[in-house]
């Protein structure tokens, strides 16, 4: 009897709580969150968990699987075609630095008054809208001996005999491929930068000009600090993007001739060789590397932008001095 009364009371308590403002809040939050969270779980975390599980097995897509423990991870690090492929990411990282510098430079120019600025923006953003596979095919012909690129260079006075084979020569073919990805993405970076620069209060420029600051000083002391968030974001995206570069090598060279990036190798191992366990282990390792790279970058930017909004000129002067000393030391070495 007492127990019954208790449950009745509990029920009442719950109903009351559900009707209360706090209860309503919680119910609404849960009701709104449950669908996206369920989707996120089903289509992202669950498959990922499965994949982590796979990485401990020797298995194909069909057929029986055998548990092999950490063996797949050991071979990721010991096989020269797996971990070694990450070396190619250095090319793509180098490319992404060029890409960001170019994007920042053009964004700064275009955010001041330029004739036909919108047309330039449009032209430079356009490559980003093209399908990556199509870009691959475009550049395959672009780099073919005696085709577009060679012809243009010949107009500029180069002799065909002195030009390298852009995709055959293993010393430069990765640079050629990186070129395509720079071409594709710098426009998008630029548009993001322009968007951020737009939000800078134009009165700041006027004030700076009255103080006698030139364009470069304006960029350095007004624009760059104001858009540091977006710069950080772009750098992180580019670096993680270069670790997982896939489309240019896959479409243009099909990963042959020393252009197989980590992703291309992973694809080959998973689909042609059907070593699903090993490929899953590669994916997990790549994820950890990307985590590490992102955290390191966060720390790096925290350090770089540490004094960005500092009003204390003494501090910035000290930092200048420190940097100068560092540079001198480096030059002296």
């Amino acid at each position: 009897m007492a127990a019954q009364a208790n449950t009745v009371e509990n029920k009442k308590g719950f109903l009351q709580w559900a009707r209360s403002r706090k209860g309503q809040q919680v119910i609404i939050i849960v009701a709104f969150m449950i669908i996206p969270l369920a989707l996120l779980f089903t289509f992202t975390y669950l498959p990922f968990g499965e994949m982590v599980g796979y990485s401990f097995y020797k298995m194909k897509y069909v057929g029986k699987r055998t548990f092999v423990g950490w063996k797949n991870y050991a071979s990721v690090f010991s096989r020269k075609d797996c971990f070694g492929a990450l070396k190619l990411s250095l090319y793509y990282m180098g490319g992404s630095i060029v890409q960001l510098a170019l994007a920042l430079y053009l964004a700064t120019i275009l955010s001041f008054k330029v004739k036909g600025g919108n047309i330039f923006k449009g032209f430079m953003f356009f490559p980003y809208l093209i399908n990556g596979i199509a870009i691959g095919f475009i550049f395959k012909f672009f780099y073919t001996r005696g085709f577009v690129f060679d012809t243009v260079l010949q107009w500029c006075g180069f002799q065909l005999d002195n030009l390298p084979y852009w995709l055959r020569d293993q010393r430069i073919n990765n640079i050629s491929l990186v070129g395509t990805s720079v071409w594709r993405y710098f426009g998008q970076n630029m548009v993001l930068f322009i968007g951020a620069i737009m939000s800078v209060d134009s009165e700041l420029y006027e004030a700076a000009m009255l103080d006698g600051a030139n364009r470069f000083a304006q960029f350095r002391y007004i624009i760059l600090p104001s858009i540091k968030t977006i710069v950080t974001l772009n750098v992180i995206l580019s670096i993680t993007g270069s670790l997982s570069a896939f489309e240019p090598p896959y479409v243009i060279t099909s990963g042959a001739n020393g252009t197989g990036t980590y992703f291309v190798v992973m694809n080959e191992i998973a689909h042609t060789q059907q070593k699903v366990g090993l490929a899953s282990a590669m994916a997990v390792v790549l994820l950890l590397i990307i985590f590490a790279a992102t955290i390191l970058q966060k720390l790096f930017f925290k350090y770089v932008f540490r004094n960005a909004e500092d009003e204390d000129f003494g501090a910035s002067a000290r930092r200048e001095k420190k940097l100068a000393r560092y540079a001198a030391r480096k030059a002296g070495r």
Partner: protein
Amino acid sequence: MKLRKVLALTLALSMTFSLAACGGSDEGAAEAPAADAGETAAPADEAEAPAADAGEEAPAAAASDLTYASIKLGEDYKDLTTTIKFIHHKTDREEDGTMADLIAKFNEVYPNITVETEGVTDYQEDSLLRLSSGDWGDIMFIPAVDAADLPTYFLPYGTVDEMSEYVNFADQWKDAAGNCYGIGYMGNAQGILYNKKVFADAGVTELPKTPDEFIAALQAIKDNTDAIPLYTNYAAGWTMGGQWDAYLGAITTGDETWLNQKFVHTAEPFKDNGDGTGAYALYKILYDAVEKGLIEEDYTTTDWEGCKPMINNGEIGTMVLGSWAIAQMKAAGDHPDDIGYMPFPITVNGQQYATAGPDYCYGINVNASDDNKAAAMVFVKWMVEESGWCDLEGGYPISKTAPTSFVFDGVTVVNNLTSLPGEEDLMNEMNAESELSFNAGGDAKIQAIVEAAFTGTQTYDEIMADWTTAWNAAQDSLGIEVKY
């Protein structure tokens, strides 16, 4: 006030109408699929009914003596008047009028048999659907059905033994009783595609029969003409592994059991036999050609579509492709007669080998009326023996009597035998474990041969040693017994 009332009324009316419209379209939408379902359901029922009958009818058909062998073209069934329907996958031939020409020629002999044709895109899938629906016509190219289902759908042409007197590959579609249900429209063989004019210009009069002779011929092409001796099609990928691996087995060893039965049990499948045979000799041709500069200038930018007019116009000497490619190369320019096909230049004990098999095969609807069955049989026999279609496509001959331009002089045509019972999966597992993927998308390993030969980073023997190591490691890890 009045205005407002009118407005409200109009609004209400328009809403009702739009609602009605919605309802209407909903109904329409709901009705349409229902009607469809009804339509599709009906033939399905029909299909089942005859299918059930088929079992009983099939012996009756055999009893009626309608066999491929018994028909005398141009004499029998001249007075038969009927309309038959033929569905096929050659949409290109349907569009360019070749099919209509063939049928016009057929009607010169059999004016009373009307043949309707339909080219089906995505034939692999659609043909199966149509076959199961039952209402597809009288002749079709047999899609992927189980051998056990053949008598349910198709009419036998006769026994395989009987048919083998008339056509090649009669055993492609046979049931347990040894009846033949399909005759290929053309055959495919494995050899090398070459340009006859380039060979003549280079002064190569005898077709090369050994790897050394082949390399010498390529060298002659390089020295005496402007053509590319061997176009690798490196960049396309599938043209590397997909094509080169196809010569493993009987062509390179003369042994029909090698590829599917011995290969996985062989300790050193890639060792140098010293006499220009075996897998070693096969891939060495590629390595040597690259090393001696007998391929295109820039292999990384080869273009599959672009190579067709090039070989047609004599800018390419040879390409390593199956005979299916002949028709495409002939169609790509103004010199179709220059395209030739030769056996693979490996000679085992004085004998050159080629593997061959049929393309799609004609099958006749077992549920058609007797008149249509007879007409269809006549048409198939005419297509195989008189039409010259197979030759037009550059195919390996199907009919044993029809004239053919496919010359494979002094070559023994063999077939790689299938795996031993219980060992069907071994090759796949070895392919995956060794990562060499023979005949299974292993393009990267062939591309690596080209790269190594060009850059000189690895000698051919080193590559083969690597392959052997990988092969042996895979045998170890899978516990496969090494017998050879």
